[in-house]
């Protein structure tokens, strides 16, 4: 089955999309066309393992900071990039400094969950389902957005993750594409053709007889999943093989992922939400300061995001990037040149009309009394409020009561 009409429509919408920025920026109001065809999009990057936020956006002048981190602390000697009197970026985040200067990069400090868990898996679940402490919610906050804002004309291509498995934020009822990295493109597409009869929508002869699949005898959703796979991967393959990037990205898995997201966005297929995980931030030992494990990963992260920003050009103003992690780490280093699971962390919001060039969120400080349980960063901004702001501002989507269960979310003041 080839949804030809829809495709054609999408292509038109994409062509329109290219001329939208000027329209979109008028008075902050956004033209909200069908299919999310105004080109607005959200790229959600998850740093798995609990990234040490305190060494990313650094209170470099704070004496307490220098005192509690004898091997990890970053100072002016380490080449930190001061962005105002109080704050500096880790030297490996230099590529983001330009976006900060352009006022398109807004760090929010002390973001997190009201739940006290220091378990990676709970903290990730709670955050990605948007429901701290609630174990009955099993749909991701982004999936809920997709479900609630979908229309009959919504693109099947609205959401994807550039990895084998979806992040939890994208799991749920609404079908989201996971793009397997190992798929050989040419061979892959004829494979899709051959499996269409097993999984596709086309009704084979006799299909209406006994044995036709229904929801009831596809309990795990295998057939449904196969069908969506065929439809969306076909188009994805076309896009990434045909389009070329002018911009160079870091040669890394993460860089390649960001590059492919840019290609799909530029193709104007009505993609609204993309997810990409970055694993390995659980630096209990050997984290390092200006150089080291965390620094190497930050360099890749920042380089890839900066390339993505260049690649998108003016379109970045309709595209929000958020970078998050499940929790921050202990304020004190642990003596193994690392840090343990903590509480408050932070979020990067980039592009999409965010009010960048300043550090958002309130900052209690690093004295013992200012810390959460005497050891971790406080949470002064609930992550759901950040998500709320980003959804409303990126997509003109009204976040209603109940979107985040048992929580009345609101915008983060001044973020947009």
């Amino acid at each position, binding site marked *: 089955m080839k949804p030809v009409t829809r495709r054609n429509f999408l292509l038109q919408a994409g062509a329109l999309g290219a001329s939208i920025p000027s329209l979109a920026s008028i008075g902050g109001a956004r033209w909200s066309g069908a299919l999310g065809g105004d080109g607005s999009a959200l790229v959600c990057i998850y740093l798995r393992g609990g990234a040490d936020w305190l060494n990313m956006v650094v209170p470099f002048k704070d004496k307490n900071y220098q005192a509690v981190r004898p091997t990890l602390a970053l100072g002016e000697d380490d080449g930190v990039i001061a962005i105002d009197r109080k704050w500096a970026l880790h030297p490996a985040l230099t590529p983001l400094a330009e976006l900060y200067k352009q006022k398109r990069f807004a760090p929010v400090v002390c973001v997190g969950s009201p739940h006290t868990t220091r*378990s990676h898996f709970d903290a990730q679940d709670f955050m990605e389902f948007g429901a701290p402490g609630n174990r009955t919610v099993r749909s991701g906050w982004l999936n809920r957005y997709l479900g609630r804002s979908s229309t009959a004309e919504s693109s099947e291509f609205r959401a994807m993750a550039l990895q084998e498995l979806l992040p939890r934020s994208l799991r749920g009822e609404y079908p989201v594409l996971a793009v397997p990295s190992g798929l050989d493109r040419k061979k892959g597409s004829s494979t899709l053709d051959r499996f269409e009869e097993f999984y596709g929508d086309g009704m084979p002869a006799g299909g209406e007889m006994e044995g036709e699949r229904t929801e009831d005898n596809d309990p795990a959703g*295998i057939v449904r999943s196969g069908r969506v796979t065929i439809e969306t991967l076909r188009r994805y393959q076309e896009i990434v093989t045909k389009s070329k990037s002018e911009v160079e990205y870091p040669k890394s898995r993460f860089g390649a992922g960001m590059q492919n997201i840019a290609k799909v966005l530029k193709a104007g297929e009505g993609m609204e939400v993309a997810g990409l995980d970055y694993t390995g931030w659980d630096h209990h030992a050997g984290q390092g300061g200006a150089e080291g494990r965390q620094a190497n990963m930050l360099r890749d992260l920042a380089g890839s995001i900066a390339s993505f920003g260049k690649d998108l050009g003016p379109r970045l103003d309709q595209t929000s990037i958020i970078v998050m992690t499940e929790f921050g780490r202990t304020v004190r280093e642990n003596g193994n040149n690392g840090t343990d699971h903590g509480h408050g962390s932070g979020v990067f919001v980039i592009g999409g009309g965010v009010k960048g060039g300043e550090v958002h969120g309130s900052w209690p400080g690093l004295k013992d009394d200012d810390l959460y349980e005497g050891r971790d960063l406080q949470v002064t901004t609930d992550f759901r409020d950040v998500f709320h702001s980003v959804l409303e501002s990126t997509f003109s989507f009204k976040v209603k009561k109940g979107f985040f269960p048992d929580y009345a979310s609101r915008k983060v003041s001044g973020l947009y």
Partner: protein
Amino acid sequence: MDGMSIQDPGAPLSPRERAIHLLSRLSFGATEESVEQVLQQGESAWLDAQLEPAVEGSPALIAALSELPTVNMDSPAIYEWVNGEPSEEELSLEKRRELNRRRRLPREHLLKAVHLRSVLSTRQVFEVLADFFRNHFNVSFTKGGVSDYLITDYENQVVRMHLLGTFADMLRASASHPAMLYFLDNHLSRRPPSKQELAEIERNTRRSTGSRQRGAEAALIAAQRGLNENYARELLELHTLGVDNYYKQRDVIAVAEALTGWTFNSGRYAEWDFRFRSDMHVEGPKKVLGHLVREDRDGGLEEGHDILKMLIEHKGTADFIAMKLVRYLVADQPPPDLVKSVAKVFRKSEGDIQALLRAIIESDDFWLRRNYRTKFKTPNEFLCSALRSLGAEIIDPTRVLRVMADMGQPLYHCDDPTGWYDTAESWLDPGVMARRWQFAEELAANRIDGVTIPPDFYQSLPAEVPRLWQHHLTKRLLPSGAGQRTRNALSTVTDQYLAKAKVADVQELGPPLVGLLLGSPEFQQQ
């Protein structure tokens, strides 16, 4: 025989269906032969035979394992095998490269052994249990460092050693094994140094470097050394009680304190074994889960044992392990009553693994039709079952292991201490299927390096009646049958081929049919 037809959901499974169900959950894929075997032997006799701690299995497996020299070595032996005799001279670039290459081999050997056993072992129940507990007490090579020396021994002495024993013994073995202590940083966890020790560090560094400042810095760094909560937390959360069940942050800290000093010997000539260092131990009373830990004034080692005992006897551990095992073997939504009764068995027996297994298999819940063919195979299960049902010859599993990694489940490389999730929800994303189809076709076409379908695989098909081939192959690869749509799809391929081919050749039509069968929805279920 109809795999997807609508049946009375209350109808009991037929004897053949029961055999298929048992094998789907307790082996890496039911094959025609194994179904016959269960039908002949009877379910419980089959299970008894599987749990007999006798030979490792098929001659093919024994031959394949014999080419992996490090799989039965302990850690010091692996260290020596990798590094050889110490040399006084500086190593040439070539020598160093050789050394680096060699350092990775024990890991390769282990991954291959795990995979080969899953596919080829005749003791399939043992291998399925190994898969579960290896995942439950996850350690990973991604930790780097000395992991390569340690994990082979962990597989042998922690996972395989206790599979037919008790959970309690396996937990104790994991807690004191260097691979776990290293993976979750417990070997680093210690009491903060005393003033006296700091002064000594300051003095020694100052003397050796001749710099007052370097001395002060060294002391400052040393002063930060202390408790590392990583293992303590995962011990409570992942290995025993389940997340946030019964424990709080203060319990995590108390457990971490009690376990300070649990470290291991390392380095050349070392035994790479558990070592308790009382000089790292945090002294003083500790309260865990409301109980005072028996204070061990004789160094502190016993405090850790006391906590493990407490955890083994805790109701929460029984509930959590029972739930996970039932989820793994029965249904993604584990039936609560079954979990309860399995937990009861756990508490009576310190988690006797065979008893837990029998409690599940002998329950009514296990055999309900609503649990039949409803688990989605993980990548590991999919790949192993594909190779098993073809009777594939495995010359070198490297390529298959790489595909498994591509599919998101690299053996012994799960970063997260939690291990892999075993529910469909965690694996079944749109897109995932494409990688499976691709592999299915490549395997059927003999294009996966290192594995081949034996030439006689198609021999038993009736050469003269090509229209029957799809049915014979279906019977072999999908013992529980194919649905209407799958049958139609196979017919279409047969028709297209016969319309073009002058002479029907099973070597031509066979592989595409096999590829489609392995990629069919039915083959993804177990």
